């Protein structure tokens, strides 16, 4: 036996491959109860027996070895190419026992590729609930493989699986040389002669899928085309015939091994049937969906407020404590007013982000997500999207980067491209802190809508809806511009509802929250330091001149008032001030001054630094009194020098919110768009159209409310 055999987990989408991967390796690959969660391969380690550690490869789900979308193509590129570095020594085909026949189609294809295979029967519990009993001993005999019953979610049956795997690895594997379909042996011989010796089924797979297989270059592809012509080969016909004859064989096997109680005509009424009566209802379906979303935003705003207050007070206390104990210096100011206030500005939003992630993972884990795809497909299609675009759009509320990756399961390139282009308009979690601060400044806290919903929560819900509305509007415009007539389809399994595992949800919450805090934290610390330097020093002796100027212009001023005036003048004369001033004429029509200009500059690459920048700028720019320790209080105290009224009034507040809602201020998203579209054109378009949209909308809002 090889020292560390490579074992690939292969199976239909949603069969439980990633759950099994997690149980075997102890890692935390993302799972979810809808087809198309895993989008790329992931490798982990599993102890087979002392001394042997297997490499486990988790892959996207496939229905057959003939791929229909980009995520499926990843798997076929590996399976079709025995020279591929990830080509497995063995496969565990994970099958959903509640849907055995369809799952076995793929099993039989993988086995015919000559890959030693073990069948893992998963979701036995689900099968039993709908009255299905499977005789797995008989099945093993009929299929001539080792079969292991497992519960991937709970990690039951792993020892049986280990035994089956060990046994299979030790045996010499005899590939099945009688394929259940007809083909010409001369054709096979010619393929083998030209493209290297292989088994018949690989040769046929190459012939019918060569256009999409990475292993072949253009010349080789042309060669395949010629062969197809010579032998009058029709790939689609062959694949259809193959599928039908495989099912014919499997039908008999399954009928002999599977027992359904009661008879097929009157299946057991399951929970899924009952729930779907409401969730997929013509009217109640939408009602429930909107209700769930609304609840989510109320939770984010109102329930999270209590832990947020605690954190806020904690940060303020820490800052005050440090200021009181450490000697007064510029560096201490950087630490307290810049760094700690900036990081506190992010940490304070952790409770909100936790609630947001919690709701999204509940949608994904229960199976409700695919119902949303179902009821939204028609609406989405009108705007050039696809029911499957719902997944990226909803997970875009957390972060656009994984959301854009999840578009890989969308079969049509046009639908997928449009979805990629508009997903960043969904309000991601990095925008949440900005919204929260600004809403708290301009929307009265105590007001309610109809006496029950907090107006601040409603405003937040409105901003998210606005992002969604703009996303589908942009999609519609793209649809008109692209005019692509590519065919898209929506043939998709609706999985049964499954109860979420509390422990899994908690762990994934913890992980995503940690990632958010650390990723955002790193950027904020880096940018805060740069900003502090830029705001504390100016060209030449600009800083001394600023101090001199204030002193000569206000000879009567003394004490704290004088210090504040000097600090404000210094900030204005610093490098950062200069940059802000350069930008000012361009953003004046949106109601922004040069200080906000600095924030726009710093948040160009990552919008989460907005709050941190604000805290640094307003702490350096004067008015340092003890009560204004939090960012929000400082912004509230800011006076507009032209009107003498508070700077952050409704007009400016909403103008800023709209700007941040639409602007493309995220390098990682642009990089992901580049990776997924393989062209600089699309991220460039994204940057230009979103920034333009942000500018124009903020302009209109400000001019209307002013």
């Amino acid at each position, binding site marked *: 036996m090889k020292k560390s055999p490579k074992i690939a987990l292969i199976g239909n989408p949603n069969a439980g491959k990633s759950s099994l991967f997690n149980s075997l390796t102890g890692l935390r690959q993302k799972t979810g109860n809808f087809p198309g969660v895993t989008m790329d391969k992931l490798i982990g380690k599993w102890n087979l027996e002392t001394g042997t550690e297997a490499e486990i490869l988790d892959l996207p789900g496939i*229905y*057959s070895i*003939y791929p*229909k979308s980009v995520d499926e193509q990843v798997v076929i590129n590996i399976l079709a190419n025995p020279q591929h570095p990830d080509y497995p020594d063995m496969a565990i085909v994970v099958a959903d026992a*509640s*849907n055995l*026949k*369809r799952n076995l*189609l793929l099993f039989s294809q993988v086995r015919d590729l000559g890959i030693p295979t073990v069948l893992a029967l998963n979701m036995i519990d689900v099968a039993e609930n*709908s009255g*299905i009993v499977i005789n797995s001993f008989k099945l093993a005999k009929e299929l001539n493989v080792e079969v292991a019953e497992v519960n991937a979610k709970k990690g039951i049956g792993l020892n049986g699986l280990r035994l089956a795997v060990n046994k299979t690895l030790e045996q010499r594997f005899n590939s099945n040389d009688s394929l259940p379909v007809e083909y010409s042996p001369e054709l096979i011989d010619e393929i083998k002669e030209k493209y290297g010796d292989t088994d018949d089924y690989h040769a046929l797979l190459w012939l019918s899928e060569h256009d999409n297989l990475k292993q072949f270059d253009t010349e080789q592809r042309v060669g395949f085309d010629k062969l197809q012509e010579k032998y009058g080969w029709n790939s*689609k*016909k062959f*694949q*259809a015939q193959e*599928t*039908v004859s495989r*099912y014919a064989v499997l039908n008999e096997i399954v009928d002999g091994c599977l027992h*359904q109680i009661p008879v*097929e005509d009157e*299946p057991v009424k399951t929970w*899924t*049937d009952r729930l*779907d009566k409401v969730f*997929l*209802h*013509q*009217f109640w*379906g*939408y009602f429930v969906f909107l209700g769930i979303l609304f609840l989510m935003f109320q939770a984010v705003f109102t329930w999270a407020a209590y832990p947020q207050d605690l954190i806020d007070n904690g940060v303020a206390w820490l800052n005050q404590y440090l200021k009181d104990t450490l000697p007064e210096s510029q560096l201490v100011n950087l630490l307290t007013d810049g760094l700690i206030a900036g990081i506190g500005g992010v940490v304070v939003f952790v409770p909100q982000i936790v609630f947001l992630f919690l709701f999204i993972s509940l949608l994904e884990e229960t199976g409700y997500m*695919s119902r949303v795809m*179902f*009821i939204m*497909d*028609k*609406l989405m299609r009108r705007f050039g999207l696809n*029911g499957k675009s719902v997944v990226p759009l909803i997970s875009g509320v957390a972060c656009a980067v994984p959301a854009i990756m999840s578009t890989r399961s969308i079969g049509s390139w046009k639908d997928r491209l449009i979805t990629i282009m508009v997903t960043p308009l969904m309000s991601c979690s990095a925008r949440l802190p900005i919204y929260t601060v600004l809403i708290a400044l301009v929307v009265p806290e105590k007001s309610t809508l109809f006496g029950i919903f907090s107006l601040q929560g409603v405003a937040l819900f409105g901003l998210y809806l606005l992002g969604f509305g703009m996303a589908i509007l942009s999609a519609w415009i793209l649809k008109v511009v692209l005019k692509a007539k590519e*065919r898209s*389809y*929506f*043939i*998709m*399994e*609706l999985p049964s509802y499954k109860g979420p595992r509390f422990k899994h949800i908690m762990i994934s919450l913890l992980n995503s929250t940690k990632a958010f805090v650390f990723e955002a934290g790193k950027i904020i610390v880096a940018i805060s330091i740069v900003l502090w330097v830029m705001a504390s020093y100016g060209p030449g002796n600009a800083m001394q001149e600023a101090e001199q100027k204030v002193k000569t212009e206000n000879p009567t001023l003394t004490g704290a008032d004088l210090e504040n005036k000097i600090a404000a003048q210094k900030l204005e004369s610093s490098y950062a001030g200069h940059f802000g001033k350069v930008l000012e004429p361009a953003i004046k029509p949106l109601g922004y001054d040069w200080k906000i200009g600095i924030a726009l500059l710093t948040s160009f690459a990552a919008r989460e630094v907005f709050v941190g920048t604000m805290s640094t700028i307003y702490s350096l720019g004067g008015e340092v009194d003890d009560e204004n320790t939090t960012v929000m209080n400082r912004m509230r105290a800011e006076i507009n020098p032209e009107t003498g009224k508070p700077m952050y009034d409704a007009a400016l507040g909403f103008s800023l919110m709209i700007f941040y809602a639409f602007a493309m201020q995220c390098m990682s998203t642009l990089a992901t768009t580049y990776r997924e579209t393989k062209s600089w054109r699309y991220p460039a378009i994204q940057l230009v159209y979103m920034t333009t949209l942000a500018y124009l909308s903020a302009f209109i809002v400000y001019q209307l409310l002013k």
Partner: protein
Amino acid sequence: MRTVADLKIGEKGVIVSFSDELLSLKLLEMGCLPGTQVTMTHIAPFGDPIAVKVSGYVLSMRKDEASTIVVA
């Protein structure tokens, strides 16, 4: 010619053939084989897409896709 798209909720039909070659492969792979029974289970708001029970699970598809599956 009756197709899956013509079924009412709760109505059953047996697949006879497909009228679209490109789609038929995907449908076959998903277990919609000639001779199997399909039951219409859900129709989305606005009448499209639809969901059917076939080979023991629920499969959703658009109306124009359903209309390529001829049933008896």
